[in-house]
């Protein structure tokens, strides 16, 4: 493992971030009586049973009705409450996209939209249940910060940030297992990547469930004498443009890594900034413009080259193109 003040010592116990989410939501709700949870018959999949038991009046379960769910959340905010909308990411963002735009972002409501189980977390359930488009859809909406936590620590930090910041936000809460990655006091700031390793050959920019795999990819490359700079991108919007420009200047190529379609997500954002300020080679890893085949999460990540070895392969390929 590569040393960084932001990284915990290596420990490969794997976590479902929904547990950290549920614990933190209860903690926040004890301290702030404005907080209510809003869901779409997703008490179990959003891990809200304990919240319901502790705060029975503060769980608003609208049933299977996502457009109503997001509208209701806007109304709850109008009435002075602070809703956490908890629903499977594909249906929260897809079914209620216009409600997210008009009722939450345009209306500037302090509502925390929580997309649970994003990416290909639902594996074999198929592309209807994969949330690979949410980052692209939501990046196109103004006034909507997008936070993609990479581990339980960052999940809790993202929730505290969303409560303390007026206005809307979208938190993408992982279900695919991840290790505890970040040291507990790692800062979380809008428009700031979190540096995890130093390096001047290639930069790996990763978000969410794939950050730890990018760190492992950097370890694999290090053995070969390639130094990789790893940047975690908890905020896809607003993006850390300065870090992208520095990476483009100081390393010979960038590989972006996300559990999402390559059309319009983190990679597109990074490539856009590089193209504008400091053109360099950018390889965008994700789901490449197809609906995923049948398979479990690990199979799909391997299929699309989103494992540590796949990410390392792409880094070598970028460096080869750059003339190493």
């Amino acid at each position, binding site marked *: 493992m590569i040393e960084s003040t932001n990284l915990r010592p290596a420990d490969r116990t794997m976590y479902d971030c929904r547990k950290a989410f549920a614990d933190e939501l209860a903690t926040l709700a004890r301290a702030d009586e404005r907080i209510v949870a809003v869901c779409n018959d997703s008490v179990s999949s959003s891990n809200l049973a304990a919240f319901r038991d502790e705060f029975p009046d503060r769980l*608003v379960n609208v049933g299977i009705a996502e457009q*109503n769910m997001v509208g*209701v959340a806007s109304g709850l905010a109008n*009435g*002075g409450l602070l809703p956490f909308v908890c629903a499977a990411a594909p249906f929260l963002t897809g079914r209620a996209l216009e409600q997210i735009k008009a009722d939450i972002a345009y209306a500037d409501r302090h509502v925390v939209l929580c997309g649970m189980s994003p990416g290909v977390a639902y594996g074999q359930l198929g592309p209807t249940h994969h949330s690979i488009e949410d980052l692209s859809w939501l990046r196109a909406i103004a006034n909507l910060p997008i936070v993609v936590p990479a581990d339980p620590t960052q999940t809790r930090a993202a929730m505290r940030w969303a409560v303390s910041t007026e206005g809307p936000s979208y938190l993408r809460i992982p279900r695919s297992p991840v290790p505890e990655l970040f040291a507990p006091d790692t800062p979380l700031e809008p428009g700031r990547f979190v540096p995890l390793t130093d390096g001047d050959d290639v930069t790996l920019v990763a978000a969410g469930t794939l950050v730890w795999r990018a760190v492992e990819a950097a370890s694999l490359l290090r053995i070969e004498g390639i130094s990789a700079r790893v940047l975690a991108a908890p905020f896809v919007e607003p993006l850390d443009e300065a870090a992208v420009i520095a990476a483009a200047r100081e390393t010979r190529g960038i590989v972006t890594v996300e559990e999402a379609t390559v059309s319009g997500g983190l990679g597109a954002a990074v490539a856009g900034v590089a193209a504008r300020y400091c053109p360099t080679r950018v390889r965008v890893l994700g789901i490449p413009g197809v609906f995923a085949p049948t398979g479990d999460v690990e199979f799909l990540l391997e299929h699309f080259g989103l494992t540590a070895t796949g990410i390392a392969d792409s880094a070598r390929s970028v460096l080869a193109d750059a003339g190493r």
Partner: protein
Amino acid sequence: MLTSSRPQVDHWRAFRDRVRDAGRDERANLLATASAQVRRDVLTMIERAGLGHVGGDFSVTDILVTLYAAVLSVEPAEPDWPDRDRLILSKGHSAAALYATLASCGYFPATELATFMAPLSALNGHPDRTKVPGVETNTGPLGHGLPVGVGTALAARLRGSSARTVVILGDGELQEGSNWEAAMYAAHQQLGSLTAVIDRNGLQQGARTEDTNALEPLADKWRSFGWTVAEVDGHDHAALADVFSASTPDRPTAVIAHTQKGHGVSFMTDRVEWHHRVPTGEELALARAELSR
């Protein structure tokens, strides 16, 4: 963000007190006079802007005026007062009628109406709560207001407030399924403080609702969803004031207000083309004359 007009707020307060103290006939006369002024303001706004939805503005005017002058507990000088009643105009294309009504209450100076849809005006063609005091949520796309209203009514109950929430829906808008998601949930939650007013003018942008995707039997639909239903002449101010003063404690209420698109101007009344036609020349003069009687 616009700011309130103190003299107009004082005037509105005095007017509201007169309306409340008046007998039924006098109340109707006072409200009819205020509605005629709102319609004249709307006509001028649409003439200046060269754009607008005059038909739907005129069908909903009497409903808006009755609510703001005789029913709602609001404070235009303090638009974010937490215990205020909330009015949500789900049919956001009738923004002109809402703006003219809000200005008459003093939420912002009536002189601002002249900027309707002009570049950089706060008065967009569809309402934006971040710019216009008194606007509770941003509407325009149809089928959004009732879910927001349900959440607003729920919040009031959770906070122990007796504030009521009124959502004005276009009838054509009921073809959007999100309304029925919200209608189910409002009844399930027994939201007695929630009123949905359906501006039942029978026309949508392209044709009659019944020729497009029929809504009838509309009252039965709301009843079957667990709502109390009242039907009223949506241009009878006294009847509107009566119906809005009634409520059931454990059931939301749907008020089906039978209206006419373009009401108040003979050649616009119940004519589909006046959904968003702009009157010109002789039409304007005729419309003004009819609205000044």
